[in-house]
């Protein structure tokens, strides 16, 4: 627990949420405010730089790292609705800027204040949602970067356990990659397809109404495959369910 009852939080919406699914960003604001945070959305944010970083383009990745650090270093915390983007700031930026005497310390400080949202709510704010109810069955996919770079596994499950009426079902291979991998899924489209097909089959076997996960990239990949296969599974970001938005349109449903 932080000791600060009302920390000032900078929300990094992430580029995918900004473009594809704003509802995740609004869910984040709602939950952070319920947890007592003062939330701001810095307008100087764009993307964390992961596409450049994973393509080997260090120069552009470092430029975006510096831009993000400058935009967010004035906040008590920087919170993201993505384990993957949070992992980039926590681990990627300090590595990327390690040899820069000015930016390396700033990157390290920002890394200590950066959190993926479900882990921030549980580990830093000690928050549990109140009065949520959803009559549904759901299964949860552990997105790789959040799980392995940030150790996110118990927190989203603890939060979801507070939603009355929501029955969680185990997913076979819950910690196995869905085949998204950022640009991997289009560069090696056939391999990615084989991986996500197995993931979709496992999700369908649970016969759960909902698929939940903490990263929009993975969710778009799995939801897009499930829809192509004609599956009825509705896909949401974990925090949309926690914010009580699962009665609205799922990913790929018109609002």
């Amino acid at each position, binding site marked *: 627990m932080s000791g600060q009852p009302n920390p000032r939080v900078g929300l990094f919406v992430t*580029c995918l949420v*900004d*473009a594809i699914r704003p509802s995740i960003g609004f869910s984040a604001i709602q939950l952070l405010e319920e947890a007592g945070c003062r939330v701001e959305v810095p307008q100087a944010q764009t993307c964390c730089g992961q596409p450049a970083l994973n393509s*080997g383009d260090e120069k552009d990745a470092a430029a*975006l790292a510096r831009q993000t650090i400058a935009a967010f270093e004035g906040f008590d915390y920087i919170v993201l609705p993505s384990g993957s983007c949070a992992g980039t700031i926590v681990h990627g930026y300090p590595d990327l800027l390690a040899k820069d005497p000015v930016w390396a310390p700033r990157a390290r400080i920002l890394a200590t204040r950066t959190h993926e949202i479900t882990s921030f709510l549980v580990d830093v704010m000690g928050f549990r949602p109140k009065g949520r109810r959803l009559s549904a069955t759901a299964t949860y996919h552990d997105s790789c970067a959040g799980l392995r770079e940030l150790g996110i596994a118990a927190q989203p499950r603890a939060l979801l356990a507070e939603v009355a009426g929501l029955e969680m079902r185990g997913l076979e291979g819950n910690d196995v990659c869905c085949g998204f991998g950022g640009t991997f899924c*289009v560069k090696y*489209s056939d391999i990615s*397809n084989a*991986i996500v097909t197995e993931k979709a089959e496992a999700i369908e076997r649970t016969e759960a109404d909902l698929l939940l996960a903490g990263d929009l990239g993975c969710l778009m*990949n799995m939801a897009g495959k499930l829809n192509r296969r004609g599956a009825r599974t509705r896909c949401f970001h974990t925090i949309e369910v926690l914010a009580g938005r699962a009665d609205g349109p799922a990913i790929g449903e018109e609002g």
Partner: protein
Amino acid sequence: MSAPEASVQVSFKNRAKTALADRTLKIAIDRTTGTAEAKRAVAVAAFPEFQAARARGRAIKDHVIAHLDHYLEQFERNATASGATVHWASDDAEARAIITRICLDAKAKLVTRSKSMLGEEIGLPHALADAGIERVETDLAEHIIQLAGEAPSHIVWPAMHRTREQVAELFKMAHHLPPSADDPATMVQSARRELRAKFLGADIGISGSNFLVADTGATCTVTNEGNAELTTTPPRIHIVTAGIEKIVPTTAHALSLLRLLVRSATGGELTQYTTFHCGPKRPGDADGPEEMHIVLVDNGRTRMLDNEFREMLRCIRCGACMNHCVVYRQIGGHAYGGTYPGPMGSVLTPVLNGLAGSRDLPNACTMNGRCAEVCPVEIPIPTLLRAWRIRSWREKLEPGSLRAGIGIWAVLARRPGLYGLASRIGVRALRLFGKGGWIARLPLAGGWTAHRDLPRPAGRTFMEQYRAQQAHKGSRP
């Protein structure tokens, strides 16, 4: 090494596509990697000190890598004192030349070989064939792929790409006395019958080495079939080929690493056979070779000491990274095109064959981190793969379209105002391509829409909606 290099030049994507279409291959991969994954999990769970053992394994390897010259010289002194002859090969060609010369000098007609990935790395099978020497692979899986004329597809189970049913067919065609049934026991008996005469008639036995023990000068092989013992003991000459990174200070260090190796590879606690070879037959010994040669191979390893791939020298070749890799489990080992497949191979193949012909390998990875999670010596494989991507970008090996795409995107992403405008236009443009909530076909995004639908974006970006909300709040009295 010419053969794998040539095959890397054939498109990785095409080989992957062929592998993906092979349903029998998928059955074979799932059986072996699935079993390996489950058994490793049980073994690790039953070994509460696993994390501590891992840290120790890593420390041993890091220490040895930092003092490689010291331990290699110590090993050479002690191996020589035990009566073995130590040879140094700076690359694959030199290693092949040394081994063929020993074989030709001994007028060897028949050579038995126990499984060694280093032998594959230096192209030994081809070199022996070119020298007119009959080579008999004595490891069961190597025997299978020798009959099939194939290369290993996994570093622990070289024939894992073949199902039991396919192996039965192969044995029926190739064995002098075909197996009478398809069950594993009968097939193993058939292979044993086939190989026994060769074991006893060989002039030279060639083995690899899992550990080179500096303070005794011994080499260590571990197997589950006992074939290494039959390969190295009866023939007149025993040749060991080993990468220089296999060195450990003492037998105790070898055993520390063995605990990690076996659990990570097969889920066992110990291999069935763990043999230390220390020099040739001494006066009074009941058996053993008259000559023992140890060929220590560099082949790019000392280059790795000084570059960003140094941590890869810790690798003990357990295969856990490939067993847990989503990509390997879809395409199998041959699609990678190098000696070493899977995540560890994607780091090593560019070292061995050059990056230009193998740049797909470090890129064909989702960076999910499972390989590093299971690695018994904590090699940060995704970080090393990213290091190849960085080199590839610097050397401009990426396709022009990708460089241009990332370039345009970065220009926008570094200008938040312009980026916001482009996003607002982009989501509106995207909406033109879909019906309802989904986009089924999208120009320039065929990689996505060939296999899955794309969620149609909401009409306005988050930033637009957020700013409108804030303005609304601000305008209220």
